[in-house]
């Protein structure tokens, strides 16, 4: 009884939303692509299918969303010398790319945190550059405090119409204040609620990649492993370029499964699953780079020739532009049932399957890293070899360039994971790639 009521309520709500969004419906439909891995499902038994929600909001012509960035730089003793010089140079170059309307703050931390430049418009570029220049190496690594203060500076001008971001550069282990990946991850999650992303740049071989990756991952920021300080300029440039190419923020996707359909999990990212409802939030979308979400569903048993609505997907996001607009949309996900195996296989959508394989391969890669952490090196290696074979196979099947790359990465990992001397760098590199892959952003 209550289920029926619920379904009808969803139907009404969806149709209302679609109707309300009618004028911009075209734009929305282009921006959000909802695809099932197999639109045709084998009848007669429960089946696992994947639902892909692809988000791709184009940039408004000649418009770039203003950014609000806190540059947080580790100035602990270990940063002394080339690292700090390169960091300054990188920050200087990055700031030079900003527009007068952008907001920037510069924070340095060692045992304690210093705000070298409170959040301010870049219009006064000289004082920004002077603040960067005043960086001096100091003592320990109060990373948590550094990020907290950086976020507080961003918060001063927190605006949904700006790209709000903390860029953290650190080369060491957090050793003052909260220091566990879980705690930094929680901080990232809390900041994501406000629309603040934390991008973490790990420099050298001394930082904690679990912590840095978790902080970036849970706040929807980027994580980069920079082995040599000379690459900092390039990485800062990429990071600022990334922030400047944001086209939408505050993305919320809600998938409400029909009765009988069960949401099993969301691949590779944080999500909230309550009963039949899946809620996923994404901090920002980038220009010309599709961002997608993959949900594993258990479809109900159907009979040959039957069509079913598996789920209703609704979304909202803030489109950045000269006049920012909150876009909303909704769509049913339908599948037909067939007793013909060939038909089912033929219906497979390669794009979705490639994404699924990429995520599964990333999960396996994570598993291999865990094994390696436990000292089970050979098991880790054989897992990676199997993973490589699996991905190669799928790459051939779907003719996917992405999967070929994933296979090559896993193959390289399988070789490098046994190298004791290079393990530190290898682990950092694996963590970086795992996060990039699981962030499900097409390049």
């Amino acid at each position: 009884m209550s289920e029926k009521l619920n379904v009808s309520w969803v139907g009404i709500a969806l149709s209302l939303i679609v109707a309300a969004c009618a004028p911009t419906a075209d734009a929305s439909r282009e921006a959000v692509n909802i695809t099932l891995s197999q639109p045709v499902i084998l009848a007669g038994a429960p089946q696992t299918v994947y639902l892909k929600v692809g988000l791709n909001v184009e940039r408004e012509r000649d418009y770039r969303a203003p950014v609000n960035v806190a540059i947080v730089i580790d100035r602990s003793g270990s940063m002394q010398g080339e690292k700090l010089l390169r960091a300054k140079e990188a920050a200087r170059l990055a700031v030079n790319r900003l527009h007068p309307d952008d907001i920037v703050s510069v924070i340095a931390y060692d045992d304690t945190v210093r705000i070298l430049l409170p959040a301010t418009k870049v219009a006064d570029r000289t004082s920004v550059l002077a603040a960067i220049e005043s960086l001096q190496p100091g003592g320990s690594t109060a990373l948590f405090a550094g990020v907290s203060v950086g976020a507080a500076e961003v918060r001063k001008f927190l605006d949904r119409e700006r790209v709000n971001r903390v860029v953290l550069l650190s080369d060491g282990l957090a050793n003052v204040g909260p220091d566990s990946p879980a705690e930094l991850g929680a901080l990232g999650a809390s900041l994501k609620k406000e629309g603040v992303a934390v991008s973490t740049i790990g420099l050298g071989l001394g930082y904690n990649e679990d912590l840095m990756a978790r902080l970036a991952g849970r706040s929807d920021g980027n994580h980069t492993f920079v082995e040599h300080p000379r690459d900092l300029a390039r990485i800062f440039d990429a990071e600022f370029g990334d922030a400047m190419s944001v086209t939408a923020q505050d993305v919320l996707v809600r998938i409400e499964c029909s009765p009988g359909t069960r949401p099993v999990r969301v691949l590779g990212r944080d999500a909230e699953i309550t009963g039949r409802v899946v809620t996923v939030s994404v901090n920002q979308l980038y220009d010309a780079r599709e961002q997608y979400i993959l949900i594993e569903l258990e479809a109900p048993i159907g009979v040959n020739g039957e069509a079913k609505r598996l789920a209703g997907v609704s979304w909202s996001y803030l489109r950045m532009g000269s006049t920012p607009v909150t876009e909303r949309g909704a769509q049913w996900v339908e599948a037909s049932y067939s007793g013909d195996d060939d038909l089912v296989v033929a219906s497979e959508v390669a794009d979705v399957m490639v994404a699924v394989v990429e995520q599964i391969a990333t999960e396996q890669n994570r598993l291999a890293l865990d094994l390696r952490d436990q000292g089970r090196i050979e098991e880790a290696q054989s897992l990676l070899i199997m993973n490589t074979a699996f991905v190669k196979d799928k790459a051939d099947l779907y003719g996917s360039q992405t999967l070929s790359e994933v296979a090559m990465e896993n193959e390289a990992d399988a070789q490098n994971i046994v190298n004791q001397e290079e393990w530190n760098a290898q682990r950092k590199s694996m963590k970086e790639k795992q996060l990039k892959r699981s962030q499900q952003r097409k390049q």
Partner: protein
Amino acid sequence: MSRRLTALLVLIVVLPTGLLAWLAIRGVRDERGRVAGQLRAAAESRLADVDAKIQRVLDDRARLLLEMDVLSAGDTDGWREFARTTPVVTQVAVQAADGRLLHPPLESGLSDAERDFLLRIRQILVGRLLGSQVERIGTVDTQQVSPPAADNGWYAWYWDTGLHLIFWRRDPTNNLIAVELDRVRLLADLLVELSTEPGGAESSISWGRIVLEDSQGRVIFQSGAAATQGTPVDTVERRLSPPLGAWNLRAEYWTGGMVGALGSFLRVAGLVVVAAVLAGLAFVFHRESSRELREASERVGFVNQVSHELRTPLTNIRLYAELLQRRLDDGDENKSYLDIIVAESGRLSRLIGNVLSFARRNRGALTIHPVEGCVDDTLRSVVDQFRPSLEGKGIEISLDLAASRPFRFDPDAVEQVVGNLLSNVEKYAGGGKTVEIASRQSGMKTVVRVADHGPGIPAGREEAVFEPFVRLSDRLTEGVSGTGIGLAIARELARLHGGELRLLATEVGACFELELPDDGQGGSA
């Protein structure tokens, strides 16, 4: 004499310097104590500030949660969105007055996070602890909001990584809304609040640092710099006010600050200056006084040099004068001139004798040559020598000699001793009318006394007269010349006999007593 003076001068320098040093050290200690007290008070008030600041953050948070729109208890989607979009909050639970759980909805599927949340607050919900055993913040301004103040509060409890806070309130239908604060986010916001206070982290660098630790002793926050190695550090601790009473706030501040060091330096410098000035004064004084001694000593030294040359002609003069004296009749007018020549040459030879003795004494070569004899004979001979000059000054000589038993002594030495005593009488006791010379023998000793009725020796100087070159520098010595070594030599000679020369206490004048052992052994090498 010189050694005593030196010791005195050293004392004059050391005593005040030591006293000043003691005072200075006490002063430094007192000031240290005072400064330490001030530092402590400052640190404590700082900690109180930090505590108040943390309370303000919590109050703000409480206010935010009180002012939020009250959703209906069953609005599951609403509560979920609230938890999803409120950065400071992780989860929310709503419990009906009868204890039933209204949110999260157990019957219609929970997210993993909601399930974890219910598991960790199960005891609180089942025990219905919210609203009863709570630690309350007294400062929340609740006048603007509808539920009365008694209907909200904090609840602190522990799980996993430490202390967590729940803010609870009752909605109008008496449902209990429990909002779990994001622990990490609370930490982050506290950090920002504490480290961006105006001049906060910066100014605390100059005096120490503040450390905030959670219930497990992990450092949550610190501001200021750690003390460098070797810097004395004191600490003050404070528990935070509820509900974060399990957190510990500590100030570590330096006690050996710049002020104390400067103060100590100034004091030490002052002491050095005072000691230097005193030592300089002492040196000048010492040099002045020792110059007198040196000059007198040099004078004796010179006389000593010439004495050897003078003695032979002087002896001849005395000899022939005495021969001549015997040839002349008593009535002869020239005899009185001759008496003067004899007396003066006797005086001169005593003088020379003293000088030579003193020189020997200084070389450690003063000796006596005891022979068997009668001391009374020697006394008579000496008195005869002095008779003319004493009588010339109107001093009557009274002899009372009773030491006729012979014993071994050096007659020349005794003559020199008694001669020096009588010479003093002649010089100083001119107004005394009589001089009494007495000798006694009893048991194993012979005693000779010479007593005058002159001005005597001032009290307190009884021993000083025996020091070489000491002349009682008052009117007594005016117009009287001398070497200042007579009594010193006399005592030395007495002691060489194994006896003593001492000044006896008398009411009038001076009375010297020469004591000689007469066991026949009186002599030395």
